[in-house]
């Protein structure tokens, strides 16, 4: 097991190094010079050159790459070209919205998907299954911003249970903040839950056809006991993979939902930074997201090994 973890950690570190290089190069070759963008089209060349020097843009690419990565290792993400504030602070502020939102949405999606998928598999071909499959078909087909608008219409405008948008900050109290994130989290979670429920159902159906389920029944387990004791855990492997992918999407892909609910999240930050050629912010946010995805995959790998003893040896 220890070897498994060490091996995964090594591959994790390697992935991060490669990713940082790729991100840096891609952002570098993108058109648009931050200094000329900031000063406008009428700026004097000398002024632009002076700003470039101040921002460190006149140094060699390698030097800037090393400076950037070295800084990140010590928590220094550089200074935003546009706002002249530390990037680390900007990201941290946004992360306090995006990370809880993503976790909240993921928890909701899992809470909806697991029972729905298990129910559908256990009642295959019967009304409960048909109902779940129909609902998930809709959930996959309808975009999440439409859900978001419907939720606002019903729960904020009609029923007035929630506010239609904005985020009071965690200083306003845990529950006030959580309440503000509830509608966005539901809007984000519904399509993910639909996908996850379908994966859970098909994965569980595959397992229920396995010989060892029949063995369990021959031992005297009821159909339900066989499903819970022998089916669900074996069905988790593909489900865990999807959960890992969904988390990465929820963290950065929430931009439309952030827009609908006026949430100051990472998605909006990256969108603004790109339009303003605030390259250092773009690089850092993207790097952070890559880090998050790789970390989640690492955790998913550990979860695989926890679920399936065969993987502990094979690694």
């Amino acid at each position, binding site marked *: 097991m220890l*070897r498994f973890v*060490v*091996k995964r950690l090594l591959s994790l570190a390697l992935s991060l190094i490669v990713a940082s290089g790729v991100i840096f190069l891609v952002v570098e070759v993108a058109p648009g010079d931050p200094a000329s963008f900031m000063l406008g089209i009428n700026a004097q060349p000398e002024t632009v050159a002076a700003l470039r020097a101040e921002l460190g843009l006149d140094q060699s690419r390698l030097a800037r790459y090393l400076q950037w990565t070295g800084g990140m290792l010590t928590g220094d993400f550089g200074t935003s070209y546009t706002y002249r504030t530390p990037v680390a602070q900007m990201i941290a502020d946004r992360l306090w919205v995006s990370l809880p939102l993503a976790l909240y949405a993921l928890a909701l999606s899992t809470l909806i998907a697991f029972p729905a998928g298990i129910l559908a598999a256990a009642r295959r071909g019967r009304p409960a299954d048909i109902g779940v499959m129909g609902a998930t078909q809709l959930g996959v087909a309808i975009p999440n911003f439409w859900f978001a608008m419907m939720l606002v219409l019903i729960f904020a405008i009609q029923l007035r249970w929630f506010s239609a948008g904005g985020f009071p900050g965690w200083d306003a109290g845990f529950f006030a903040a959580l309440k503000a994130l509830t509608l966005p989290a539901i809007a984000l979670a519904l399509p993910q839950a639909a996908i996850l429920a379908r994966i859970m159902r098909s994965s569980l159906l595959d397992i229920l056809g*396995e*010989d*060892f389920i*029949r*063995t*369990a*029944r*021959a*031992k*005297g*387990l*009821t159909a339900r*006991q066989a499903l819970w*004791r*022998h089916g669900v*855990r*074996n069905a988790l492997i593909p489900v865990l993979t999807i959960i890992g992918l969904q988390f990465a999407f929820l963290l950065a892909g929430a931009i439309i939902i952030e827009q609908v609910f006026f949430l100051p999240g990472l998605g909006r930050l990256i969108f603004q930074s790109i339009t303003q050629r605030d390259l250092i912010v773009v690089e850092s946010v993207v790097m952070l997201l890559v880090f998050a995805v790789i970390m989640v995959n690492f955790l998913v790998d550990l979860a695989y090994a926890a*679920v*399936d*003893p*065969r993987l502990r*040896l094979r690694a």
Partner: protein
Amino acid sequence: MSLLDIDTLSLAIFGKPILKRLSLTVEEGEIAALTGESGSGKSLTAFATMGLAPTGSRMQGRIAFGGTDLLRLPERAMCDLRGRQIGMVFQEPMTALNPVQTIGAQVMETILVHKAMPREAAKARAREVLARVGLPPARFPLSRYPHQLSGGQRQRVVIAMAIALRPRLLIADEPTTALDVTTQAQILDLLKTLVREDGMALMMITHDLAVVSDMADTLHVMRHGEIVEAGRTAEVLRDMRHPYTRQLFDASRHRADLGAKDIGAPLLSVRNVSRDYPAARKSLFGKPEPFRAVDTVSFDIRHGERVGLVGESGCGKSTLTRAILGLEPVQEGQITLGGEPVWTDRANLAIRRRMQVVFQDPYGSFNPRHKVGRLIAEPFHLLPDPPRGGARERAIGAALASVGLAPKDADRYIHAFSGGQRQRIAIARALIIKPDLIVFDEAVSALDVRVRAQILDLMADLSRDHGLTYLFISHDLGVVRSITDRVLVMKAGRIVEDRPTKALFDAPKHPYTRSLLAAAPTLPPPPETRDAAQASL
């Protein structure tokens, strides 16, 4: 009153009748065998008795167990009965166990699900019952996972689960079909011991008459969902009142007519061949220790010779076969066909087209979306100048005709053919480019006895008529005996005996060969010879 009394049981799945007014009884402490070909309804009889018939099943009649009609019993009561009163062992030990639970947990579950004893006592019983089936806790602690065990060991765990609560009836559905002969003999011995010592009844389902002939008290021969003949095993095998019983018996001991053949010059030559695989690393950066799967093996196969290769699973048969076919390089030694190496720096295509293989699975080895004509013409890709147009059609027709099929079958899809016909098509595919050597890799293992006998006859005819050379790989000694001139016995990567078939079977020299032969179940001689023997006394 019989322990199990199945009375005029009929079963239909979605309206299709499968079992037709079937009746049989099993007494306390008795071994009853149910035999017949695939599709005869043997396994369904077992599942119906367990109350685990597939969805869409409708049953009529009576299955009385200890006087209770199981068909009228509610599901809840059936669950109480399963595992406690009736245990079941399945065919495929590799998949019958949950891969993510320890063997201890799975054996204990039988006990705990019936609330038969508290957890600690259940643990002690699990250890006891695993020891009973030959897995002593010192070597096989409860914390083992199924993937850490061999097929035979897993089957022992399945048996342990089934007998943990000392059921009155054990149903075993082809319990040894997936196992080697030596493992099979051990598992059969174990089952016999359990019956004799615990007074348990055993309903044994098998397609192999030899397996049951020396262990079953009663024999029930099934065909198309009916029992065509039943009685004491010795009497059934002696009288064989029903022609079908006779056919099964004859097919089981069938010998193909190999005929006398001229054996020519050496064709395939294997010289001091060794094949290593990297084994698991001992430490993270340590050098992996190689595992020697084939160890300095040497032999020749001459033109026209039919050579068998036998051994248990894991002995290196498959590895050696892949090396002969030029699919993988070897670490030491050389393999040549007609003097040319099969592997230079890469696979030698000029040599590979002179060899063809027929695999075990007649269902998985064809692309279902291609017509038979295209399937059997596939090896033409190996030729530098494959026939086209009319010549191609004629070659396909001739190949089909040579395996007893019609040229018009080329326009049909593979799903239209039975298992035996598919194996004929596989042979046609091998024959079409007129190879020097055909490798049969367990090619008749998945077939029913009567179909198997036909395919063996076909192989013998083809080799006589076309002077073909065969390498015949099988774990089934009976089959190898019937179709080969010479046998190689392989053990732990080495060839331990290499002699003409008759000599080897009549007087095996190597202890391992002897143990293999001793483990293989045998049928009694046919009634005529027994009668003749008695008359001469």
